[in-house]
Each structure stands twice: as C-alpha cells, then as structure tokens.
C-alpha cells in the first residue's frame, strides 16, 4: 500500500522510480544549484586556475604562450617598479584601513547618540558609499586640479599657502590624495555597519557602569569595544580586502601616478597585461597579490575575533 501513489484523477498507480527521483533531495539540489554553480565555475573557478597557469607562461595579448616556469616571477623579482607597487599597495592599505576604522568607529559612536533628524543624517552619511566610485573619483580629480582646486584657493585666501598645491603631480601629495579619497569613500560603510553593531549592545550595561561610576572612556573600553569585536573583525576584513585590490580610484585619479608613485599591484598588472600586452607578466603580478591578501584577511579575521572571556569563560 505504501508503494501506491494517488494521481490527479484520484486513481492509484505504482510509484515509479521517476516519482521517487523527483522528490529525491540530492536530485533536486543538483538542478537547483546548477545555475549558480555554472556561473561560478565557468567564470570564477576556471579563470582563477587559468590565471595561475598564465603566470607560468609567456602569453602575450593575441597569442597563446608556452610554459616558461618561474621566468615571469624571476623577472618581477628584479623589477624595481614591481617592488614599488608592492610598497604602495601595503602603504595604501594599512594607512587607509587604519584611518577608516578610527573615523568610522568614531562616527558610529556619534550617530548612536540621541540626535534630532537621526534617520536622515544616517541616510545622508551613506551617500558617498552608494555613488559609483568612478564618478566620485572624477569629482576628486576636479577638486585636486593643479590650477583650479577649490582647496588651494581656500587655503590661499586664508593666507596659509602662497601657491597652488600640486595634488596629483607630486609623489607624496598624490599618495596622500588617493588615500584621502579612499578614506572618504570607505568611512560610511564602516560607520553604518558598526552602528548596527552598537545598537545591539544593551543600554542596561551602560547604566550599570554609570551607576558604578565609570567614565565615558571606561564605558567605551570595557563595554562597547569588547562587544563590538566580532563585527569589527568582519568589517575590517572586507575593508582591507577591497582596499588592497582597489583599481578604480587610482586609475581615474592618477593612472598610476607621477612616476609610478601611486601604482597599486592591481593597476600595475592592468598596465602590464592589457596596455603593454604581456599577459603572462600581468598574471604573475595578480597571482603575487594572493599571498598578501590571504595574510591580510587572516590577520583581520583572527586578530579581532571574540575572546572566550567575553562570553564568561576564563581566558585561554
């Protein structure tokens, strides 16, 4: 009796293997997962392997390459521009991420207070993050123009400087300018995410601490910060990842900068691979990014995880 199925007209028939297959979990899962798996395997997993393979060949734009082993990497090891781009990337990532974290956390704490028009202010704060990066980069390009910059004009009017600042033409000015643009764009994301985390902290903890005589700083250091650590870990992992692999901001503002001073590894690999045509070398530069990336992610993730003592167990 258990083997009979009732079909549409109420007549019973044998349960076939096809019937059982139609409700089999694994069969259904295969078909449900197929679209996502197809996209991710065809356009993500396969190119990732292909990229590593390409870095071991001498492929050029327009012709296939032959296997040359570690030749590309040896060439890069001796290339000073490559090491300059590594230095730039590390400088850019560490400085921008640290400042984004500091200002983002401060802004989140400010927004957590009892403010008028809180919802509107919170919505307005996110605008730099949703506007496409390229378009705000163009606005910064105009703001940092050597002749018509409003910043130079204002500083001159206040008699703080005497001639226009060359924002994007001088080596260190260009570096600070792109770091500033990156911070400007990244602070809203960090702030709003941390704000969401702050709102999960129960106010009764703050009250108990205030009754016991804690100052603002002590409340922050012993209540807010420990409870925020998991969210900080996630946010900073994303932030470090996207800052390290940033392409758009640099490309639009400086194309790699005055004498390669703002070349990140991503923009340098684009220049080598697509503009100069050396696909193998470009792939090698991209593959060289992976160890740094893994290290940065691991540091962010494990360094900022919740410790056992925060959940009431003893320290380990």
């Amino acid at each position, binding site marked *: 009796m258990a083997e009979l199925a009732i079909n549409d007209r109420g007549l019973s028939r044998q349960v076939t293997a096809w019937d059982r297959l139609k409700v089999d979990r694994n069969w259904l899962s295969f078909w449900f997962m197929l679209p996502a798996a197809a996209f991710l395997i065809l356009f993500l997993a396969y190119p990732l392997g292909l990229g590593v393979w390409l870095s071991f060949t001498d492929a050029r734009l327009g012709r296939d390459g032959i296997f040359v082993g570690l030749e590309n990497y040896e060439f890069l090891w001796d290339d000073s521009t490559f090491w300059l781009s590594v230095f730039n990337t590390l400088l850019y990532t560490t400085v921008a991420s640290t400042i984004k974290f500091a200002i983002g956390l401060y802004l989140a704490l400010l927004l957590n207070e009892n403010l008028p028009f809180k919802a509107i202010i919170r919505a307005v704060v996110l605008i730099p993050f949703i506007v496409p990066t390229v378009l705000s980069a163009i606005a910064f390009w105009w703001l940092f123009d050597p002749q018509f910059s409003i910043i130079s004009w204002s500083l001159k009017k206040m008699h703080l400087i005497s001639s226009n600042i060359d924002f994007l033409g001088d080596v260190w000015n260009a570096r600070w300018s792109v770091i500033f643009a990156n911070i400007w764009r990244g602070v809203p994301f960090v702030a709003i995410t941390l704000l*969401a985390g702050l709102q999960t902290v129960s106010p009764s903890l703050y009250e108990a601490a205030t009754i016991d005589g804690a100052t603002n700083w002590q409340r922050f250091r012993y209540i807010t910060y420990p409870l925020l650590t998991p969210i900080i870990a996630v946010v900073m992992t994303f932030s470090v990842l996207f800052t390290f692999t940033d392409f758009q901001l640099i490309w639009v503002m400086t194309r790699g900068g005055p004498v390669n001073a703002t070349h990140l590894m991503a923009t340098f690999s684009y220049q080598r691979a697509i503009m100069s045509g050396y696909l193998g070398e470009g792939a090698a530069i991209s593959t060289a990014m992976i160890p740094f990336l893994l290290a940065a992610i691991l540091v962010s993730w494990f360094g900022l995880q919740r410790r056992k003592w925060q959940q009431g167990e003893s320290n380990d």
Partner: protein
Amino acid sequence: MTDALAGKAADPRAVLTGSAPLADESEGMSYLQSLPRRLVTLYLPLSIILFVLLFPFYWMALTSIKPDNQLLDLDTYSPFWTWNPTLKHIYKLLFETDYPIWLWNTMLVAVCATALSIIASVLAAYAIVRLRYRGAQWVGGAIFLAYLVPPSILFIPLSTVVFQYGLFDTPFALILTYPTILIPFSTWLLMGYFKTIPFELEECALIDGASRWQILIRIVLPLSVPGLISAFIFCFTLCWNEFIYALTFISSVHYKTVPVAIVTALVDGDIYRWGSLMAGAMIGSLPLVILYAFFVEHYVSAMTGAVKE
C-alpha cells in the same frame, strides 16, 4: 526607573529616533551631559564629518551649472556660488555626446545581470538552507569565499575566457561575468532570509503534496520579498560600481558603460570640459541615489544583515 528604561530598550529603533514615549522626565542617560558640552563633543565633530562627506557632491552639482567663464576664473567671482547658472553643460552632455547610449548600456547590463544573479541565488540559497543536501554547508562556505576573490585578480584570465567564447566587445561579456561578483553576496543574504521563514509552513505544504518547486514559488518567495528587494538593490548598485571588467572587455565606444565612458571617451586631448564632466558624473549618480532614497532601509539591512550573519 530601570524598568521604564528596560521597556524602552526593547524597541531600540524607537529609542534612537526619539519617538518612544517617556515614562519619566529623563531620556536615557543624556541628562548627564549639558548642552554646551554636547555641542562640542557631538554636534561639532558630526557637522565637520558631514561637511567633508557631502562637499564633493555640492561641488560636482555646482560645477555642472556654472558657466565657463566663472569656472576658470576664481578671482572675480566667488567659487562657492554661481550667478547666471546655465544648462549648457548638461545640454552638451545629453545631445552632443553618446551619453544617453552609455546610460542605456549601463542600465541594460545592470538589470540583466541582477536578474540572472537573483534567480541563481534564490535557487542556490533554497537548496542550501532547505534541501540540505550532503555537503551543503561546505558549498555555502565555498560560495561565500567566492565573494572574497577580487575582480582585479580575475580580469586577465577572464579576458582570455571571454575572448575564447566570442563574447568580447559585446554586452553579454558583462552580463555573464557580473554574476560572479553578485551571486556570492546575494546567496549569502538570501540564505539568512530563508532561514527566518518557519519550516512548519513548508512541512504543511509537503504533507499536502506540494513539490519543492511549488513551495519555493508560492510560499517562500512571497514571504521573503524584503530580502529580495534588498538583494536586488545591492546587486544593482554593485553593477553600476563595476569598472575593471567593463574597461577590459569592451573596446568600442558604442557598447561602453557610463563609468568607463566618462573616463575614456568624454575627455578629448588635453582639454577637460569640466562642466560636462561633472554633469556626466552627477547624472550618472542620479539613478542610484533615487533608488537609494526610496529604499534606504532595505539597503542598510542588506549591508548590516549580511555582516551580522
């Protein structure tokens, strides 16, 4: 007093927007701070940060409507305001360049890629969360890890793959490669939403003889409309924000998207027509800002809900 405050704490949004009814005279612990102190430690830094965050947009909008002689001559006219605002730059942008074509390209690519990604993510998220086949957790983790692979590592081999499939320099190159950026995040997001739908509803439907497909279409999807809206908006924003794939895979001006075209095609030689450039940047930001203005809550919940897992 703690009871009243505990009652207010149960509804944090009301507390923070100040609309909760007060059981006594105090508002939490803000009575501890006097107004002048709040002015210095709260309102002043907040205003400075807001000013820095919003000034570039004001400057962008102002430059779009400033006539040329005021743009380049900073001494006779104050640059912070404009007299005789002109629509000439916007007119030139819309009618004398290919800007409308680029806008259309970007919209088309964004909508198609988002639609494809949402369909794939809904199916994948449902399979991982409800069908729970063997190894589902690992696949879910792998999909999330796929989000951590940045486009600036993949663009070189992807360009050869796109060329091999004959998709180079067509919109399909972008429509088929953007989902690799969109699917991981939206799957993750939708997994979170599907988990909040009680399994009992599906059990009842299963007992009544519904197939999994029917359950998905008729029960799960209608209940997760907020999640779908959030995923759609976030994916749409990511598509507009994408630059490196569009720069690498598209070479003819006719198929370019707005971010790439503004940087490569709108600048001829050494003459930067700043008015039109800024107008282009402003009009390019408008669709996203309008979408955002209507769906702020969904966007924020997408960002923070995914992060809080």
